[in-house]
């Protein structure tokens, strides 16, 4: 994208601020619904960063896949499991948070050191800009053909796996033996089988 450098810097600063504040909100806010909507904002600002990086096709894919599909899926999941529950307090919560914060700060420092001390081969070749979409298509059908086809198989597997995992109804009879399934057990999906029964002694 050919825009003035000043405009580019202003856009970068705005997008970066949105990104960092939004992601902090995703992690820190109490209400998970707010977090999900902020996550959509984060995805949109990442798409804006892609536009700054001369990648309009990937920016469009980001908006379509992340904002349009993943974020909506997360919102659906929140609506399905959003039961008010009082979380049992953990004794060492604060120390755990501080410890993991220190670990993350250390990781951030390491990554910054790598970013600023490595001699990147700059400046590289001139970005091809709007030709990028054609180049991506060429890559997909020449040297990245096998990963491209595998990705479609992966998506099919994920789709079938998600359906199998999330469906509630089951077959009326056992597929292998043909015996009728215990419908009483199936219908009692409301009474969970694995809830915490720590009061009762469990069989060894």
């Amino acid at each position: 994208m050919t825009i003035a450098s000043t405009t580019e810097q202003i856009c970068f600063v705005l997008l970066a601020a949105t990104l960092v504040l939004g992601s902090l909100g995703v992690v820190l806010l109490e209400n998970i619904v707010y977090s999900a909507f902020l996550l959509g904002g984060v995805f949109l600002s990442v798409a804006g960063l892609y536009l700054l990086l001369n990648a309009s096709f990937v920016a469009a894919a980001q908006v379509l896949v992340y904002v349009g599909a993943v974020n909506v899926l997360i919102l659906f999941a929140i609506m399905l499991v959003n039961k008010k529950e009082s979380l049992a307090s953990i004794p060492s919560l604060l120390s755990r948070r501080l410890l993991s914060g220190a670990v993350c700060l250390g990781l951030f420092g390491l990554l910054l050191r790598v970013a600023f001390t490595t001699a990147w081969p700059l400046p590289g070749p001139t970005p091809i800009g709007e030709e990028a979409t054609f180049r991506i298509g060429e890559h997909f059908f020449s040297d990245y053909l096998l990963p491209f086809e595998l990705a479609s198989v992966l998506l099919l597997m994920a789709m079938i796996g998600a359906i199998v995992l999330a469906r509630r109804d089951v077959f009326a009879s056992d597929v292998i033996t043909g015996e009728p399934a215990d419908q009483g057990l199936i219908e009692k999906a409301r009474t969970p089988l694995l809830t915490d029964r720590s009061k009762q002694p469990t069989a060894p």
Partner: protein
Amino acid sequence: MDLTAPVPLQAFLTLAALLFCIGVWGLINSRNAVRVLMSIELMLNAVNINLMAFSNYVDGELIRGQVFAIFVITVAAAEAAVGLAILLSLYRNRETVDMERFNLLRW
């Protein structure tokens, strides 16, 4: 700060590192399982920003980074679908989304 220079590569790398660290922190500290999945998405996006920045600044002719970013987006979509399905199944069996109570396989 030079207002006429283009945005340096290191600015994108710093931003991606910050986003990744926020994602890691959220992954460790979230008690809601949905928020854990959101943190994973944040980390994947951070990696994608890195790939796209390198693709633009270092590999502007062949843009292999963009191809990789598209594959990462594909895998992330599959991961989100399966992860949320697992979450729904867990919720049906345990009636909670508290990560501290998913401890059936923990010593």
